[in-house]
């Protein structure tokens, strides 16, 4: 279970999160919606531990442990996974090499045996196939020359391989056409389980047609302004974020 209490966080001295409370029980999928600038991405980065995102007050506990005391790689080992809105390109690092380094680093930190090369390849091929990722693509440098959809699918592949307990999806739908969105959403849905919690951050309701959340929270000015069931997302689709400090036009 993820518990966020009275979270205040600043970037470059400017307070973005201003007393955010959120409880995400094991096995549930919660959506975080809200207008631009409400703090959605900041929350994602704070959870993953990005430098420069300074927590000034409040706490985050994950499975009873203080998440804020961990560095980013320790959080990954503890099961936190952030699917980036804009996955980064790293020329010179073959995707496959990167995936194996990541999987084995996490396994090592969790006290598990490293995967042998054949075992690793077998797992990658299997998961890649589910996400319709061509294995040839994985021989290329990480995300270099990948289309927007390929990058997002690659994020979900990493998520599947690292077997996290908490998945944070930051605007995973951005830049995806409807077919790519469906593949990504299918990939995410396959990973839903009783042990795994997910935080789906999105500006638009569209993604939530495919990944149906248990709860929806609306962020406004750095706090949760309203929470409800999946129907809240549909309501926002009609009314827009005007009453939450966003633009009046419907998303």
């Amino acid at each position, binding site marked *: 279970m993820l518990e966020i209490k009275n979270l205040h966080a600043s970037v470059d001295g400017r307070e973005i999160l201003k007393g955010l409370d959120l409880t995400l029980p094991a096995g549930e999928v919660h959506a975080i919606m809200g207008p631009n600038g409400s703090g959605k991405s900041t929350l994602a980065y704070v959870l993953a531990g990005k430098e420069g995102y300074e927590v000034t007050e409040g706490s985050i506990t994950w499975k009873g442990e203080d998440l804020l005391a961990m560095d980013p790689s320790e959080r990954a080992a503890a099961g936190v996974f952030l699917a980036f809105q804009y996955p980064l390109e*790293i020329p010179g690092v073959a995707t496959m090499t990167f995936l194996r380094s990541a999987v084995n680093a996490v396994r090592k930190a969790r006290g598990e045996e490293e995967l042998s090369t054949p075992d690793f390849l077998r797992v990658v091929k299997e998961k890649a196939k589910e996400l319709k990722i061509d294995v040839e693509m994985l021989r290329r440098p990480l995300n270099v020359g990948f289309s927007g959809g390929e990058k997002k699918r690659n994020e979900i592949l990493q998520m599947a391989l690292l077997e996290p307990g908490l998945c944070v999806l930051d605007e995973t739908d951005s830049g995806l056409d409807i077919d790519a969105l469906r593949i990504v959403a299918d990939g995410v849905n396959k990973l839903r389980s009783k042990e795994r919690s997910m935080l789906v951050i999105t500006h638009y309701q569209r993604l939530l047609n495919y990944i149906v959340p248990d709860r929806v929270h609306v962020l406004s000015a750095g706090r949760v302004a309203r929470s409800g069931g999946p129907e809240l997302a549909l309501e926002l689709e009609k009314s827009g974020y005007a009453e939450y400090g966003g633009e009046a036009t419907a998303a």
Partner: protein
Amino acid sequence: MDLPVQQFRTKAEQEFLDLYTRAEKALPGANNPFVAALRDKAIKTYGSLGLPHRRIEAWKYTDLRARLDEVHPLIAALGAAVGESELEAALGKPIADFPGYRLVLVEGELRVDLSDMAGLRDAGAEVASLAHILEMPPDWLKATLGQVNPREDDAVLALNTALMTGGVALRLPEGVTLEKPIHLIHLDGTGAPATMVTRNVVVAEEGASATLLESYGSLGLRGLQRNAVTEVKVGDKAAIHHIKFQREAADTLHLGIWLANLGADARYNAFQLSTGANLVRNQLYVRFDGEGSAMDASGAFLLRGKQHCDTTLIVEHRVPACESRELFKAVLDDEARGIFQGKIIVSPGAQKTDGKQMAQALLLSETAEFDSKPELEIFADDVVCGHGATSGQIDEDLLFYLESRGLPEPQARALLIQAFVGEAFEQVEDEALREAFSVAAAQWLGVPAE
């Protein structure tokens, strides 16, 4: 000796002259008029030039005259013991084990007992110890030695010609293709501080091709002053892949020069990886003499402490329709200093020239320094030439991306550094060598190889 008058010589400058005077009669080929004349002319050239210093534009960042306090005596060949374990200690396992025709230079001499001369001869090459062949140089050597790409303005080259004690003379006759690379190993010795001057001459005749790996390592001699020159004549339709790996002891002065010229439709790929020595100057002079040829000169240096590595490159397009590419990568930690100077000269009439160069540095500390100086001298009007240089630190966003995937920070950092130099390694055609270089980079970083 009849030397031109110079107002002032530093101690080291004078000591080189003294070194020559003392050694002259005992140097290989001393009794051969051709060789004696060559040496005599060279020491005079050196005498009039003196050691290069910072007011000479090409040596702006590497003031050799100021940095060289004294000149050690020429190394004496004592027959140092060299076995597999010494090779591995000197070069690291992947390079020591690199499969190829081994030629081993120890204490400035070619050690035939450690070299696969027979293998090379069976494969169709002509190979000899330079010291030996200088006693009675054949015509092909006379036409090559000092002639490949003469540089009258280079004092380090002049010193090499005057003082060369040994090396390899290699000729690949027309059409000979070596299936295995040649691994030319340069080691020092084990004794007192010394000067070592070696010279290799390689001639690839029409249509011949080979990969030549030159590796440089240390057996334990303190304070080596090395001057190593290789001349490569790449004939029409010939192809030479020329690779250098240098990881000498931390107190080494390494002065290296490669001179190359290319005939028509020829190919020359040069690559240099430096991780060792204290003060390094690598000079690479390439000249196109025949149309339709291409060359690639790339490399990487990984430096820390107070290491100083200067790569200076001059590419001369004398004829039309040739292509040159350069990509150099520097990883600099602590107070290390990396320098890249690349000059492309396009002669009048060398139309359709295509020349590009790029130098990139990754600075791992606030006190590391990278200097890049591209120079284009273009006297033709229908050419494509370009250059670029970047210098920066590790990208924190990339670092976070890797860390968020579970890689602890030091490992993430190492992976990004490996990726950075890995782009340069891509220029090495031989896959086994590329992998050996990746391992060498990992060793330098202190991380397990992938």
